[in-house]
């Protein structure tokens, strides 16, 4: 199977640029890259969700055009999505035949499917009780159902999008055994991931994507995690940031034993403790999806923390409840959220209205909102932060990404907070604005503010931070000094590949966890996704 010269743009964003990729039959082919590198877009083109703007797809030497997923299935391409596409209150077998029924009556299809499932289970070690309801299955078993669905439809090429993101280590191992069996039986597997460990463990070949382009395709046996990390992160020019050495003062933000779960009750932040002092920038590095978002949300009151405490300026603040963010703001914590469109702005409202979001109660006495004062201050900030167009009465959706980000930054910085939490300050922002934003953040630091910075841009973390914490799988796996740490080391830490000194820790942690040394660890083990029951049939 091969892809030649694939291009795909979403508006001004070029998600895929001249991508060439060829995958040999009967191999496991890994595709790695940072979030937003275009991996998922490429696979969606292959699976017919999107149509490429240009470029061709060849399957078994023949050029094909794939316009929808049925078409892809007919060509033997099956996909296992990151988020499962299963009907929760249907049984396994019903989900497998869904959309592939042979006749109006279900009976014959189901009995045929039952036979095939038995065969597939025998051939590939894909045991799942066909009559169990999906909602009763563990995440790992649900994933197996997804694989069965694809195989039942005759898939020869199986695409797995971040398959281990939701799995426990034991479930991931099981999945890899299944994938190896599938490969040995002649199936082709494309594995999308950003975890280098998995690439090294299972793939035969690996392609690295960065910023919409295909950087390189390598034989896994001939490469190393270091090389892949370098290719993945890229050697972009460090944006030089002019800054004086930090002079940290007293602790302004203190996070202790923080545990945060996501919407599904899976712990994403696992017992994190750290401090940020006045006059320093602490950067949190990590590949997206390793708990940074949940960490930011919990500290800023957007998500209820499960355990632990957050202290601002020495004072313990309850961030619990849907008005936690207001209490934190009152305590002097400002927050520039990761996703400004979804979280930090109401794009249907006007510029001046967004310029007071979160602080609206300080405009006007009594019930009334002092619109005049709000507009006047918004106009001042527009001037100071050079927000364009300089129009407080313009709907926020009509500003460009960089200017929207400036609206948020201006709002949060001009309140003169003690602690500033910044998530992805330059995501989707053009170069000129990036420089400006970086300068503002440094200026805040020099004014004695405590700043916590989270970014997926490693360069940004390295050039701005005075200390770097590396987050992997919800835990701080290392702390580095940006002056001395090199990109390779950080990249490896971010990818969860520990240095030779760290495996000891890992082993210790693993050995310790089940014994519930502390209440937090006990809770964590209890919250972990159900470890699959042993196949008792």
């Amino acid at each position, binding site marked *: 199977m091969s892809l030649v010269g694939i291009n795909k743009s979403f508006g001004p964003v070029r998600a895929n640029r001249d991508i060439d990729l060829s995958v040999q039959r009967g191999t496991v082919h890994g595709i790695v890259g940072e979030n937003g590198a275009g991996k998922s877009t490429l696979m969606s083109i292959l699976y017919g969700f999107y149509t490429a703007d240009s470029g061709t797809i060849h399957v078994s030497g023949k050029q094909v055009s794939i316009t929808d997923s049925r078409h892809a299935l007919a060509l033997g391409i099956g996909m296992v999505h990151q988020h499962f596409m299963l009907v929760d209150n249907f049984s396994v077998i019903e989900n497998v035949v869904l959309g592939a029924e042979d006749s109006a009556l279900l009976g014959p299809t189901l009995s045929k499917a039952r036979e095939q499932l038995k065969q597939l289970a025998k051939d590939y070690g894909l045991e799942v009780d066909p009559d169990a309801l999906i909602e009763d299955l563990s995440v790992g078993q649900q994933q197996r159902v997804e694989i069965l669905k694809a195989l039942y439809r005759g898939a020869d090429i199986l695409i797995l999008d971040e398959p281990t993101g939701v799995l426990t280590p034991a479930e991931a191992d099981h999945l890899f055994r299944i994938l190896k069996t599938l490969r040995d039986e002649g199936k082709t597997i494309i594995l999308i991931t950003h975890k280098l460990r998995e690439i090294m463990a299972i793939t035969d070949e690996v392609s690295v994507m960065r910023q919409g382009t295909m950087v390189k395709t390598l034989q896994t046996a001939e490469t190393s995690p270091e090389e892949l990390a370098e290719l993945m992160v890229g050697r972009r020019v460090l944006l030089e940031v002019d800054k004086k050495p930090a002079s940290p003062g007293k602790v302004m933000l203190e996070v202790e034993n923080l545990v945060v779960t996501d919407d599904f009750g899976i712990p994403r932040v696992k017992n994190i403790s750290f401090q940020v002092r006045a006059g320093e920038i602490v950067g949190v590095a990590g590949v997206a999806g390793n708990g940074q978002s949940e960490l930011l949300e919990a500290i800023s009151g957007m998500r209820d923390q499960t355990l632990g405490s957050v202290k601002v300026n020495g004072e313990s603040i309850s961030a619990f409840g849907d008005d936690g*963010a207001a209490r934190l703001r009152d305590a002097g914590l400002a927050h520039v959220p990761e996703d400004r469109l*979804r979280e930090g702005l109401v794009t249907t409202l006007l510029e001046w209205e967004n310029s007071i979001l979160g602080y609206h109660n300080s*405009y006007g006495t009594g019930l*009334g909102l002092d619109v005049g004062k709000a507009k006047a201050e918004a106009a001042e900030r527009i001037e100071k932060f050079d927000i364009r167009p300089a129009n407080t009465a313009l709907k926020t959706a009509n500003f460009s990404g960089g200017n929207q980000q400036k609206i948020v930054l201006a709002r949060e910085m001009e309140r003169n907070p003690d602690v500033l939490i910044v998530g992805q300050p330059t995501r989707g922002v053009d170069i000129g604005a990036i420089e400006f934003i970086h300068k503002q953040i440094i200026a805040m630091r020099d004014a004695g503010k405590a700043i916590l910075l989270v970014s997926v841009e490693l360069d940004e973390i390295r050039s701005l931070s005075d200390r770097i914490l590396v987050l992997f799988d919800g835990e701080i796996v290392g702390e580095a000094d940006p002056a001395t740490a090199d990109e390779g080391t950080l990249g490896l830490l971010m990818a969860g590949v520990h240095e030779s000194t760290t495996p000891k820790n890992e082993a210790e942690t693993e050995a310790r966890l089940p014994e519930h040394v502390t209440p937090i660890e006990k809770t964590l083990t209890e919250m972990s996704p159900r470890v699959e029951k042993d196949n008792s049939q």
Partner: protein
Amino acid sequence: MSTRVPLPRWVDVALLPVLNVMLAFLIGGIVVMLVGQNPLDAVGIMIYGAFGYGSGFGYTLYYTTDFIFAGLAVSVAYQAGLFNIGPEGQAYVAGLGVILVALALNGLPWLITVPAMIVAGGLFGAAWAFIPGYLQAKRGSHIVITTILFNFIAVSMMGYIISKHLKPVGVNSDESAPIDAVSRVPQLNVFWDLFKHSPVNISFILALLALVGVYWLVWRTKFGFAMRVLGQNPTAARYAGISNSRMIMITMALAGALAGMVAVNNVGGVQGRLILNFVSGAGFVGVAVAFMGKGHPFGVALSALLFGALYQGGQELAFSMPGITREMIVTIQALVILFTGAMGDMLRPPLERVFFKPPNPSSAEGG
């Protein structure tokens, strides 16, 4: 799902609703023709009936009053992202508050009883809307479902209270004891001869004040700001520290209080007693009014007037053109609701083709 193309504001706000109403009348006209009547005559009679003479106009304004309150009850909640389908029940229960206070203060001058009726009606309506609000905020029960069901509960509860407790001995129909004339909400014909023989009363003035008040609340207060943030982007509301649950409960209570003013208009101003099922659909019309008015007080005022005119003109029509029955009027009203509410965006695609300009941030609207 196709994305909405931005249209010039006047097209969205004025042209689209007007075209929808015209389309509804066109289909309505065809229906009138099918039963063998002249649609132009029918329209003439309706317009005359609604606006042509003092008493008719008075009736139009009386209905408009109900629809403004019910429409605002839906609009206020809508600003906070809540679909309040319960003004019918909220108004009905408010009737209990109005009649209890009015009967307790019976005989006192209206300057005393009317404010008391307004407060009591508001409180009862607010309480009835607060419960679904609480259930949504604290228990996650969907407000659409609960407010609809609370309409039914209100009907049963009020039926019981009226027939078993409020009905005086010796009265056959299901209604409460009457309020003395001096204690009722004064009708405008007392002050203004034009509205002779029509029930429009001081509640209409109250409705106009409510329109202004809601505008002020939504666009000129901190609470209104929080409400709009919540309605437009709940995630950003949480980010801003706006308590979702608190906002929902307060907003719903406020909506219920506005719906409760329907009872002041009807129980206190017209009937002078609490009659079984007195709301008779005004609350549901409020939903259509709010949607046609895009949740904005100005739009609510216009669409409430349209529906008021339809109600009054329709009755005139049923009276003057024997070929057109009461059911025919309901059909035309339903067509207006259908075209402006449920199918309000049906004419959007062709308008988009006519008016679409490629997005250009610098030329976007300034207000």
